[in-house]
Every structure is written in C-alpha cells, then in structure tokens.
C-alpha cells in the first residue's frame, strides 16, 4: 500500500531532527550522517512514489472531520524537488558548516523545515497546511539568523515580521473560508464553493491568500524581505530558501488554493499574470545592478518566480476565458517546468556562491576574478548554471522560458511574450556580469592562493550541473508525459480535484 508511506515524508525529517538534537550536541559527525541519511531516504521515497496516487487518512478519520493527505501529480512533482535539493544541500553542508558552531541546531532546523515543506505539499486540509507552513517558516527564520552577526539578525527580523504578517493574513483567510463553508478540508471547501458560486467574501479571502502566500513566495510587491534574508543565510540554506521554500510554501499553496479549491476564473488568472509580470520586471532590474553575488542571486529568485506565476496564471486565464486547452497546457508546462528548472539552477548558483565564499572569503563580485582558473569545477558549474538561468540553449532554463514565450505568443498576448523575452535578456546581462567579474579576467592578488573546494562540496555542484544540462530532455513529448503531465493535469482539471479526492477515500 503506497499510501501508508506518505506519513514518512514528515515523520523521517521530524524524527531525525529531534534525534540530532539529542545525540549530536557534542560531535558533528552523527549529525552529518543522520541528516544526510534522512534526506537521502526522502529523495528515494519521493522517486519511488512518483507514479503513485492516493489519499491517506490520518488516524483513519474521514473528511471533513479528519485530516487527509492527498498525493496527486502536483504534489509528487514538489516532493521530488524539495527532497532533491535537500540532499544536495545537506551533502554540501558537511564541509561548508565546519566553521560554524552548534551545527546540530542547524541540522535540526533544516530537517524541521524539510518536514514542514513536505507536509505543506501533501496535506489536503487548510489548517493542516497552515501548521506545516508555520513549521517551515519559523525554522527558516531561525536559519536565516544562524550566522548570528548583525546583518543576519537584522535580515531575519525583517523576514520574521513580514513572514508573520503573511501568516496572519493566511490564517484570516482560512478563518473566512471556514466561516463561509463550514469546512477546513480542501476537497469539501471546493465542493461547497462550486455549488454556491464565488461570493464577495470568498474574493476577500482570496485576496488575503494572494497577499499572504505572495509574501511567502516573495512576489512583487510582497517581496521586500527576500533580498535581505536569502543572502544572509548560510549558502546551503540560501539554496533551500530560494530553490524550494518559496516555491513549496508560496507558489504551491497559491496554485493549489486558486486552482483546486476556489476554481480558476479570469480575474484570478489576470491577477496572477499581473503579479508575475511585476515580479519578473522589477526583480530582474533590481538584480542586474547588484555587486554582491548572493544578493544578485536573491533578486533573480523574485524575477524567476514571476516567470512561474506568469506561466501558470496565463494557463488559468486562457482556460477561464475558454481559450485553447492546448495553449493553456503549454503555459502550465512552461510554468511548472520553469519551477523545476529554477530550483535546480538557483540552488546550484547559491551553492556555487557558497563554494566561492568559502574559498575566497568574499561575496563582492569586484573583489573576485579569474576563478575559473583557480576553481575549475566551481567555475564550470557556475558557468553552466548562469547560462541556464539566462536561458541559453541547450541548458534547461532555455526550454522552459521558450515554452512560456511560445504559449504567450500563441495565445495572442504579444506584449507578454515580449516582456518575457526582455526579462530573459536582462537576466542574461546580469549573469554575463557575474561571469565577467568572478570567473574570467585576471586573478586578483589576494586570491592567488585560492584552492578548489573539497570533494564533498563539489559533488552536489556537479550533480546539479549535470541536471541543468540534461533536464532539457523533459521538454521532449515522451518525457513530459511522465514527468510534468500529471502535474499539468491537476491544474487543467481544476476544481475536479474534490471529486478525485472523494473517489480515493
């Protein structure tokens, strides 16, 4: 029975988290081992159940009273992303975290965050979602502050304040929905809304969700905490935050609620498109002016999340307006594919920045130079990731952006297509800048003795870089059928989600 392993996705990291706190206070080695084993087992599990579908009832209680966890194509995709990046980050942490004290706390928080994210993408209950979301968020507040310096604490405080605002708004939204429909179970809410139609209070709740999850996903204009918080965290955490956290607790929840619970309509779709374009444009222009490598990367996360939301919102908008289902699927494909790609190349970029910072002691582009020669593996993987995010063929980012552009143009939204291309171009400019100043050029005097990072740090870089090169194949029709089609189906079917859940009970 596949469904019975679902609880493991929360139980393993949660258990490992407490175990580490218990046994590894003095020595670092047990923490390394436990953390890596648990993330590895999570990745294996998420791949094993990739084709599985089903509903798990916690304690055997039936909804709407009981909490159920739903495994569908959309959740599967996120599970793989979360756990893939987790294992890369934990492997990277082994050497990277050597210089920090209290590493056991770090791993405990890390695994708590993973547990929270896994819970968010599995649960089929609104309040349960909120609980997991808070677990992941609070763990991430603490992780951002992990360095303990002035800068980190300030960033963490900003993140905490804004994150709490988001949580409050989400909670208020959940309360409103509960008040209107009398349910907390997503499938039941969806059924109730589709029979009663969308009212003004629903709309208000939806707005609260957009704002709340928008803060969690760092979409413009709710993005302002991210450029401080993501660079301040230790590099593997930055990779987790940018690579998966904003997606799992922000984008995922937003999409799940809008598509499967409320049901898509053209106003929501238009809203998502608008937010997507704002994020893309503002994020990228803020990024290109940065000279701090990690900060530059953080701004790009905003911009790239814009792509994801634009693609998915566009698909929803087209369906809601009765447009071509093929074009809508194409837009969904582009959005989801870009989400997958972004988690790979952005984590890779943050890990590269960690590797560079570890070796050179700086994050300022102007203080670097000639690193391709000094750190060949980091330099090469960084080049690959930069070209991926800039959308240069044959790397993965090119394909997903291309699909979004084609979908927009095929739907007749030429301006959206043009803006998408423009933003991609500015992304290219900013990563050419990164490569020009950090990887090429003369080696500056201070960096003459820089060495390549140890094998354990380089290993995840190579793995992710190979994914950047190879993931283009997902765009091929046969592969998409297996990898992304199930998730797209969930979006296309929209409010039929309820029927699916009830049929699986």
């Amino acid at each position: 029975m596949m469904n019975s392993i679902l609880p493991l996705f929360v139980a393993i990291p949660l258990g490992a988290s407490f175990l580490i706190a218990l046994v590894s206070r003095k020595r670092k080695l047990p923490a390394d081992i436990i953390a890596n084993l648990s993330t590895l087992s999570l990745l294996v599990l998420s791949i094993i159940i990739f084709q599985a579908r089903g509903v798990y009832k916690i304690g055997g209680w039936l909804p709407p009273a009981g909490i159920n966890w739903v495994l569908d194509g959309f959740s599967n995709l996120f599970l793989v992303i979360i756990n893939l990046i987790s294992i890369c980050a934990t492997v990277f942490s082994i050497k990277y975290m050597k210089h920090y004290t209290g590493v056991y706390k770090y791993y405990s928080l890390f695994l708590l965050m993973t547990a929270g994210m896994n819970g968010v993408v599995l649960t089929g209950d609104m309040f349960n979602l909120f609980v997991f979301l808070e677990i992941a968020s609070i763990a991430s507040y603490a992780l951002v502050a992990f360095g303990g310096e002035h800068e980190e604490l300030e960033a963490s405080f900003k993140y905490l304040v804004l994150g709490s605002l988001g949580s409050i708004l989400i909670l208020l939204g959940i309360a409103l929905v509960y008040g209107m429909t009398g349910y907390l179970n997503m499938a039941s809410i969806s059924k109730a809304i589709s029979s009663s139609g969308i009212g003004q209070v629903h709309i208000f709740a939806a707005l609260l969700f957009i704002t709340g999850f928008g803060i969690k996903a760092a979409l413009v204009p709710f993005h302002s905490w991210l450029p401080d918080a993501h660079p301040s965290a230790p590099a593997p955490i930055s990779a987790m935050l940018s690579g998966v956290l904003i997606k799992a607790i922000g984008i995922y929840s937003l999409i799940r609620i809008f598509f499967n619970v409320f049901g898509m309509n053209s106003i929501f779709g238009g809203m998502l498109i608008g937010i997507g374009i704002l994020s893309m444009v503002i994020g990228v222009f803020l990024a290109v002016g940065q000279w701090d490598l990690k900060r530059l990367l953080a701004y790009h996360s905003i911009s790239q999340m814009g792509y994801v939301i634009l693609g998915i919102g566009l698909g929803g908008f087209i369906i809601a307006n009765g447009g071509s289902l093929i074009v809508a699927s194409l837009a969904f494909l582009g959005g989801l594919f870009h989400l997958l790609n972004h988690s790979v190349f952005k984590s890779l970029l943050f890990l590269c920045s960690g590797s560079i910072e570890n070796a050179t002691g700086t994050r300022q582009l102007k203080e670097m130079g000639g690193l391709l020669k000094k750190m060949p593996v980091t330099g090469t993987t960084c080049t690959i990731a930069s070209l991926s995010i800039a959308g240069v063929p044959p790397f993965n980012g090119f394909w997903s952006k291309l699909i979004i552009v084609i979908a927009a143009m095929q739907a007749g939204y030429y301006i959206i297509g043009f803006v998408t291309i423009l933003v991609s171009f500015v992304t290219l400019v900013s990563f050419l800048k990164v490569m020009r100043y950090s990887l090429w050029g003369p080696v500056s005097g201070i960096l003459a003795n820089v060495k390549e990072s140890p094998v354990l740090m380089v290993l995840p870089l190579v793995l992710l870089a190979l994914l950047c090169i190879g993931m283009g194949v997902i765009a091929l029709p046969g592969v998409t059928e297996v990898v992304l089609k199930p998730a797209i189906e969930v979006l296309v079917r929209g409010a039929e989600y309820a029927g699916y859940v009830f049929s699986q009970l």
Partner: protein
Amino acid sequence: MDVNLLLPVIFIPAGAGLLILLLPERVKVVQEVISFIAGSIMLAGTIYSFFFHTLPVPAPFNEVFRSTSFSSFLLMIAAGFGFFITLYSISYMWKKERRRQFYAFLLLALAGTAGVLLSDHILAFLISWETVTLALYFLIIGGEQGAQKGATKSFIMLGATDGLLLFGLALLWQISGKVLFSEMHISTNTWISGLSFTALMISAITKAGAMPFHTWIPASSEAAHPPAMAVLPASLDKVLGIFFLFTLCNRIFVIGEGFQIALLVIGCITIIGAVLIAMVQHDLRKLLAYHTVSQVGYMIVGIGTLSPLGILGGLFHMINNSIYKSCLFLGSGAVGKKTGTFELGKLGGLAKAMPFTFIAFLIAALSISGIPPFNGFVSKWMIYQALLESVKSGTLSMNIIGTIVFIVAMFGSALTLASFIKALYSVFLGQKTEKTQTVLKEVSFAMWIPMMTLASVCVLLGVFYLFFIRNILGPITGLTPVFPGVWESSFAMVLIFTGFIIGLLIYLAGKIVRSSRVVEPYIGGEQENPEVHRVPGTDFYTVISNMPVLRNIYKGQAKEYLDPFEWFGKLGDWIIMIFKKIQNGLLPWYLSLSLIGLVISLVLFLSFFITF
C-alpha cells in the same frame, strides 16, 4: 549507420567539440588531432554532398532539417573556413592558454552554423543560431588579457537580438500558423508581419554586423585571437546573417518598398560610417574589424535592391568577403604572432621577412578595396549595376535613394582602398621598427598555406566569376541575373599581368643599373637614430578626422554616443535607479508595501465587482 548529411556536419563536429571539452587542459596534441580530423570530415562530407551525391537527412531529423543546394553550398564554404582556420590555429594556438576551449567552441560554432544553414524548422533555427552566439562568446573570451570585456559586450548585443529573433519567429509562427520556413510566404503589409520582419531583420543584420548594431565586432576584436575573429565575426557570422537576410527577403516575406528603402539606407550608412572609422584606427585588428562592418553594407545594399543581379551580387560579396576578410585576419595573426603587437605605429617593413604573408595580405587588401581583377571588384560591380538598374525602373523615392546609395557605395570603396594603403604601408612597407627588426623568418607553413589558399581563391573567383555566377551561384539560388554589361575578365587579366611584368622589369632594371647608394641617416656627420626619421602610416588620414562635420562625428564615436549598447546601458541604469528606491532597507516601508499591495488588489477587485 548509413551515411547521412547530419553526421559529418553536425554530429561529428559537435561530438568532437564536447569530447575536447571533457579532456583535461594539459593534454597536448590530442585536441589538435581531434579538431583537425573533425574539420576534415566536415569539409570532405560537404564537398562530397555538394558535388557528387547529395547526402540525405535521416528520418527523425528530416522534419526539421532540409538541405537545399544553396545551403549545402554555403555549408561547404563554412566547412572550408573551419578546416583552414583549424590548420592555421594548430600553429597559432600552440603555446596559448585555453586551447581546449578554442578548439571545442570552434567545432561547436561550425556545428551551429551547419544547423542554421540546414534548419527549416523555426526552433531548430533558433537553437542553432544561439549556439553560434554562445560559441562566439567562449571563443572571444578565451583570448588575451581583457578579452572578457569585448566578449561580454558581444554576447549582450547578440543576446538581445537573439531575443528579437525569438520574438520575430514566434510572431511568424502565430501569423502563419506554420513552423517550417519553406511553407511560409507572408507579405509585410500588415503591422504585425511588419513587426516580425523588423525584429528578424535586426537580428540578421546584427549577426552580420551592420550599423548601428556593429559595435560588438570592434569591441571583441580588441583582445580576441585573430583566428577566432577570422572564423566568426569575419566569416561565419556574415554568412549566417546575410543568408538569413536573404531568406527573409526572398523566401519568407514579400517585402514592400518601405522596408526596401530601409535596407538600402542601413547598408549605405554602414558602408560609409564604418570605413570612416576604420581609416583612423591604430590597431590592425580593430582596423580590420571596422572594414568587416563596412563590407556588410554592400551585402545589405545588394540584397536590398531585390533584383536577381543585386541579390546574387550581395551573396557573392558575402562569400568573397568571408574569403578575403578571414585571409586578412589570418595575416594580422601571423604578424601578431611574429612581432607580438598589432599596433600599426610599431610595425613596418615586414614584406621582406614575411613574403607569403605580404602577398596574401596584399591580394586580400586589393580584393576588399574592389580592385580588378580580384573577386571583391566583381561582386561590388554587380551590386552597382543592380543599383543603377533599380534607379532606372523604380519610383521617384527609389530613384533618389538609389542614386545616393550608389554614390556613397562608390565613395566607400575608394576610402577602403585608401585605408588599406595605410595598413599595407604601416605593416609591410616602410622602415623596420624595434618590434619588426628581429623578425627574419616567415611563419610556419601551417599558417601561410591557409592564407595563400584563400588569397588564390580571391584571384580565381575574380577571374572566373562569370562561370561561378552562371553555373554555380545562379542555379543553386534559383536566380538568373541579367548583366547589363559583362566585364571581360580574362582579357583584362592578361593586360594587368602584362602591365605588372613590365613594371617588374623596369624595377629590376633600375635596381641593376642603380647609381645611388643607400646609407643610414645622419646629421652633421653624426649617425641618427633611424626611428626618428621613420614615417609611420598611422597619421595618413588625420586630415579626415579634422574635417568640420566629420570631426564632431568622430568625437561622438570616440565617446560611444553612437553605440546602442551604451544607449540601452544608460536606460537600464536609469530604470535600476528608480527601482532601487523601492528597496531602501526600512522595515516599516516593507510592511506598508505589502499592505499597499493588498489594498490595491482590493480596490481592483471592488472596481471589477461594481462593473459586474
């Protein structure tokens, strides 16, 4: 596996390129051997396919790639360049850093070029096109110290126009409903097809390097290795850009007069603008780079005439330009390799020590200046004829524009000659300098054979142009030119040679009976430093840069006012400055920003509901 066309032209070069990338940098010889073999296979395959038996495109790929006789002809030329450049580089790159990167991306550029020339599907075209851009970036950035600046600028400019290419192609797809170029036939009279044409045209002429989007070429020439310049900006990028422009104007779109005039004007400005800048350059590579730009103007004008003669002239000029321009760049590379400098002021008197380089450079220089009987003359002459024809038959505005373009093109040709007289004098003639004194021997045969081969092709194409146009270029493009007047090249050739031999005899006679004696310069019995009395060629045309109107243009050009890269850079800075105001680091402002977002969306929704 059956022999097919894609194997020698895409799979083997790309595979070999990737293989070289995987080899460690320390390994010597292997990289050269692999690239030489791959280059030879590509050349052999294309020659076989063009002349003997057209190789088929295999099954899953025949939906996206389609070989026509024209594309396989251009493919053969590209492969020829690839082969000669590889041969040349073996010697040139021997002790340089980043050889691995050079060979790998050279092969990938060739594979990408093959992809562009063969692809019929818009996506295959786009991907191949961008592969060439990417390869260009890595080829240039692997150059000397400081190459990263020019390479970054090139990638930014080409990346921007690659974006336009994507936009234009997606529009094409949307308006025609088709994805294959061969099935499209669109008129430019609706705004949307006009927009698509404009976007695609800009990407084509930027790749080719026409003004005002030419600035990446001189920037990248500053520190790139000459073979890298010879292979991409000087030849393959031209071939691709002009090939695409040709396809656009003749196959995909039916263009209106407005666009025709636009093309002519762009061509005309490019011819004169670039040559004026070229005249005042002090660096051999930069001088050549600006001439590369200038020559594109002729091609664009040729295609812009829209008559078979002009289009053939433009295409012929593209082929010729690739030949003599890569010969010139290779010549500059030979000079640079021997002397260690590209500064015209520091060079001089190399003709005796490097005779092959000198002869090849001379022939190529005469070709580019449009001197009969070399190939550059013939193609320019075809373009002039086509211009005059279209002036005769066109509307009033065409008459005026055509006449102006004609005059400017002629004038540009004269300036090109002037500029190359300066270059030839500064590098090969005149007195020896500190840098050139130590040069006693010619470069190795692997370097001069490619140059001499290219130079002899210049002569051959110039003399037998009629055969080439009527029997090869005409049939494969499906165009039949009508020559208003035929230039009797073989008779002229005899006359020119006779004149040359007579001149030589007189020179030799003078040398034998010479009654003067040559001594070192001296003043008042004291030996003088010959360096003081040397006349460098660099200041030949300072008078031009001091002319009243031109002076200001030169000043603006020096300050990069005429560079779209700078315009958009400034615009970008300005946008960044505005957006940075949002991100001021103050928590209260961040909080209120989020709430403002909430309120705005609330207002939007309310207004929606009121309208319902």
